[in-house]
């Protein structure tokens, strides 16, 4: 007590005006609760989505970009400096989107220590038919064991098993949405028709549900050989190589390296999902704006209450000053009161925020849409709790400092004489 003569005053002030103290604490509590909850829900959703995306898309995807226009052949004859060349209606060369020496590239890629899995594949548009029902989708020819190592397909299987793709001749695995629209179940026979007009009878050996709606509604897997048959191409024909890395963060740099080494387009997962990330960025900005405005409001609440309190306690301040409390003591009294309000209010806010987030995370929501998930995925990252708490303290600190400074400037003689 001796070391902190102002502590007694602070405690007395806070406890003698319990309602005022509680109201201003609630302001902070509310702000912090919303901060925790909103940040948890938004980033939880984003993390869930990113995780799903990372699991179901390759870290690096190598393919031939068909859209690249070939430069006019005249360029070979005339140099750019001397001659203007204008060729209208340039069309791409009629090249198949094949990766030449694709299987050798796969072997080279497998020797990289950073690479944890490589899966060659080829894909084509196809129409899936059963009876009168027909639906177009994309059929992926894959080496199912390699593909499973990359995307953990086995875990997402709703029925059937991935290994039957190897044991059953003409086996096919359908996405859950695709199977549902076709009305097929396990072991049904369906017809797959390629754009080239080749039809194959196939047997459904599995149904897959990744949780990413777009994929589940359109994607099917079958063996590389069968897809090559559908496309009427030779045995070495592959169009895509999907790569998983030990460290996802290296995807950008390695993609550049593979691009220059093999001469094909190498796209990392961030580029492939750029649209989503820009949505996330906007979402984050909105989230933080909302949080900051809530804290601003509770900050103004504290500012108001403290300013009023100082006005009411002019006499107290004058007496304290005349019995020897310095300007700094007076400032600290009110600043400390604000910080205690911020500290306790923040602490309660953290607890309530956690409880609300936790309750939300165990209530089944069954979201269907962009992604499907049984529960709301909520981020309980301690960094948010720390950040929210620091934010709360800083906001109340600033809101308390200004009136506290004003209180410290009060000249006691003016108050005492005016009585």
């Amino acid at each position, binding site marked *: *007590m*001796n*070391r902190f*003569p102002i502590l*007694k*005053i602070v405690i*007395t*002030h806070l406890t*003698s005006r319990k309602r005022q103290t509680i109201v201003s604490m609630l302001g902070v509590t509310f702000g912090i609760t919303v901060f925790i909850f909103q940040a948890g829900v938004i980033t939880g959703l984003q993390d869930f989505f990113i995780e799903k995306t990372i699991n179901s898309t390759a870290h690096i995807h190598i393919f031939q970009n068909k859209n690249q226009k070939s430069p006019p052949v005249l360029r070979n004859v005339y140099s750019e400096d001397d001659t203007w060349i204008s060729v209208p209606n340039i069309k791409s060369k009629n090249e198949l989107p094949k990766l030449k020496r694709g299987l050798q590239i796969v072997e080279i890629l497998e020797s990289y220590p950073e690479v944890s899995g490589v899966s060659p594949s080829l894909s084509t548009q196809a129409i899936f038919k059963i009876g009168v029902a027909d639906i177009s989708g994309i059929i992926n020819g894959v080496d199912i064991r390699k593909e499973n190592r990359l995307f953990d397909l086995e875990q997402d299987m709703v029925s059937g098993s991935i290994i039957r793709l190897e044991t059953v001749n003409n086996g096919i695995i359908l996405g859950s949405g695709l199977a549902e629209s076709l009305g097929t179940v396990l072991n049904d026979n369906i017809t797959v028709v390629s754009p080239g007009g080749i039809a194959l009878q196939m047997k459904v050996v599995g149904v897959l549900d990744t949780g990413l709606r777009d994929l589940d509604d359109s994607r099917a897997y079958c063996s590389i050989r069968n897809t090559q048959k559908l496309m009427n191409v030779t045995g070495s024909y592959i169009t895509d190589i999907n790569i998983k890395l030990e460290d996802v963060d290296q995807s950008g740099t390695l993609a550049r390296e593979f691009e220059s080494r093999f001469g094909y387009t190498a796209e990392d997962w961030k580029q492939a999902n750029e649209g989503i990330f820009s949505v996330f960025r906007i979402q984050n900005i909105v989230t933080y704006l909302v949080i900051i405005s809530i804290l601003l409001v509770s900050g103004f609440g504290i500012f108001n209450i403290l300013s009023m309190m100082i006005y009411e306690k002019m*006499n*107290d301040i*004058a*007496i*304290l*000053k*005349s*019995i*020897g*409390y*310095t*300007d*700094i*003591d007076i400032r600290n009294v009110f600043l400390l009161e604000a910080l205690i309000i911020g500290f306790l209010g923040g602490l309660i806010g953290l607890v309530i925020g956690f409880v609300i987030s936790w309750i939300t995370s165990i209530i089944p929501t069954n979201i269907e849409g962009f992604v499907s998930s049984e529960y709301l995925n909520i981020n309980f990252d301690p960094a948010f709790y720390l950040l929210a708490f620091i934010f709360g303290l800083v906001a109340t600190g600033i809101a308390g400092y200004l009136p506290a400074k004003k209180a410290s400037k009060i000249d*006691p*003689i003016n108050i*005492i*004489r005016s*009585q």
Partner: protein
Amino acid sequence: MKKVLEAKELNKYFYKPVEFHVLKDINLSVYSGEFASIVGPSGSGKSTLLYALSSLDREYQGQVLFNDIELKTLTNEKLAHLRNKSIGFIFQFHYLLADFTALDNVMLPGLKLGELPHEEAGR
């Protein structure tokens, strides 16, 4: 005997609402152990004089010396310490801190000074 408090040529004016000369050339010495009282009709400037002598008011002409230290030369902080250690106040009106107990009201200067342990200050 030691001179504790001394006022030299103390002049004090009020400027609002009109200029008014309250204290005119006050010369005053108070010695250690002395018991002094200031008597006068209301409005004669007793309180004003005491505010100046007790270092609360410093807008006057002339000098007030406390233990031979000129009060005007001290900073706010040193003045606060001086008041805390050496001056006791009983104000004309009931200037008490309403939220505190009577004991706390008496103890507050001692708490600030911090020279006595809490139990002793409370005794």
